[in-house]
């Protein structure tokens, strides 16, 4: 492992196997967030598939503007611009698709098996190692573009995480002891993303959903959902529906569907 080594952009460009995603790659030392930068390009059709990569983000963010830490050279912080011509109701699936693609890339490079938490968190040994945030822009009901923002913790050690999240967040190195080239992982992620994105565009959504479902951390478990309205709802996780919504069987034996919520596994 080479501390403080920048990503080798030439190596990345020479070894890229994907045909759409990453054909244009823009590298930055420091940005507010890669999603913010991607936004500037995203409306122009010639940037479909463009990847924005930064060594560090000063304002990396998660859902509802929560902070995402992006220490320089210790992870992969990047965004992918996509302009799919897909029905709006299917777009939420890109969230599940991205996490599943990332899971598969990690298996290929590190031979470990992460699990997925709805809708798109990636866990290894019950610790979160990656965060994904998607942003899109609609003119009324017409989609302009989608940006998939991905953060992967690669080489951090536990000292790199603040105390509050030290027990729940980790990195690939901390969990596996393996030192990998960040370039190798990034190339594999882009390859898997494109592979699954082409399946998405072809309309074979069940393939993506089935793979996601098989690798879900809370499959058949009792969970508690915290909804955006501030409610807590408990029940048995039943799976995802065809749009990627979470299906919950509540104690009164009703099935409910959620399109946004935080999931917590209730220990038996």
């Amino acid at each position: 492992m080479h501390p403080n080594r920048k990503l080798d952009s030439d190596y990345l460009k020479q070894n890229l196997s994907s045909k759409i995603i990453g054909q244009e790659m823009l590298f930055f030392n420091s940005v507010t967030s890669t999603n913010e930068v991607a936004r500037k390009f995203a409306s122009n059709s010639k940037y479909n598939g463009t990847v924005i990569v930064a060594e560090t983000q000063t304002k990396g963010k998660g859902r509802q503007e929560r902070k995402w830490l992006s220490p320089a050279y210790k992870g992969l912080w990047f965004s992918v611009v996509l302009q799919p011509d897909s029905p709006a109701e299917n777009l939420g699936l890109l969230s599940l698709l991205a996490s599943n693609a990332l899971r598969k890339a990690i298996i290929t490079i590190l031979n470990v098996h992460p699990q997925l938490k709805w809708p798109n968190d990636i866990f290894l040994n019950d610790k979160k190692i990656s965060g994904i945030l998607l942003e899109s822009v609609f003119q009324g009901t017409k989609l302009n573009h989608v940006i998939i923002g991905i953060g992967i913790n690669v080489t951090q050690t536990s000292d790199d995480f603040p105390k509050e999240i030290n027990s729940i967040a980790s990195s690939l190195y901390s969990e596996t002891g393996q030192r990998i080239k960040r370039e190798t992982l990034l190339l594999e992620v882009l390859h898997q993303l494109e592979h699954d994105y082409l399946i998405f565009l072809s309309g074979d959504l069940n393939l993506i959903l089935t793979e996601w479902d098989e690798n879900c951390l809370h499959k058949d478990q009792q969970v508690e959902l915290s909804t955006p309205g501030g409610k807590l709802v408990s029940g048995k996780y039943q799976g995802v529906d065809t749009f990627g919504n979470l299906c919950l069987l509540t104690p009164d034996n009703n099935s409910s569907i959620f399109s946004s919520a935080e999931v917590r596994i209730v220990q038996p």
Partner: protein
Amino acid sequence: MKEEEIRRLVKIVEESNIAEIEITETRWGKSTIKISKNSSGAANSSTHIIQAPSPAAPLLPTAPAPVAASPASAEAKPVTSSGADIKSPMVGTFYRSPAPDADPYVEVGSVVKKGQVLCIVEAMKLMNEIESETTGKIVEILVESGQPVEYNQPLFIVEPA
């Protein structure tokens, strides 16, 4: 859409205080079902199959369609003002601001330009920014922040300038 599913949706409408729902499936072929309640409270279903649908086998056969089953299923307010309505492009959660402690994008009375962000609809951690299609004034905000919204549900009324 299968007959039993249509029956189930009719039942949902009958038992709820939703006046009308419309569901469009576009995965493999387009099918639209619109169920509206008449004045006596019973639901009528009028199904328009635009193209022969080949319904997706859901991973969970028991799972209800998301449009009708959100626990706090939005009851679309009747649109009373004149003007163009801005509709939700998808099922999700409506937010008036980018973060819980941030100012709302717009208020009633705000003058907005075409392309200005009005709100976010979130689904599966995909934050969809909805931009105004017209320049004008917000005359009504039809949904509370943090509430679930349905596909095509009106969110704002904009009086064109």
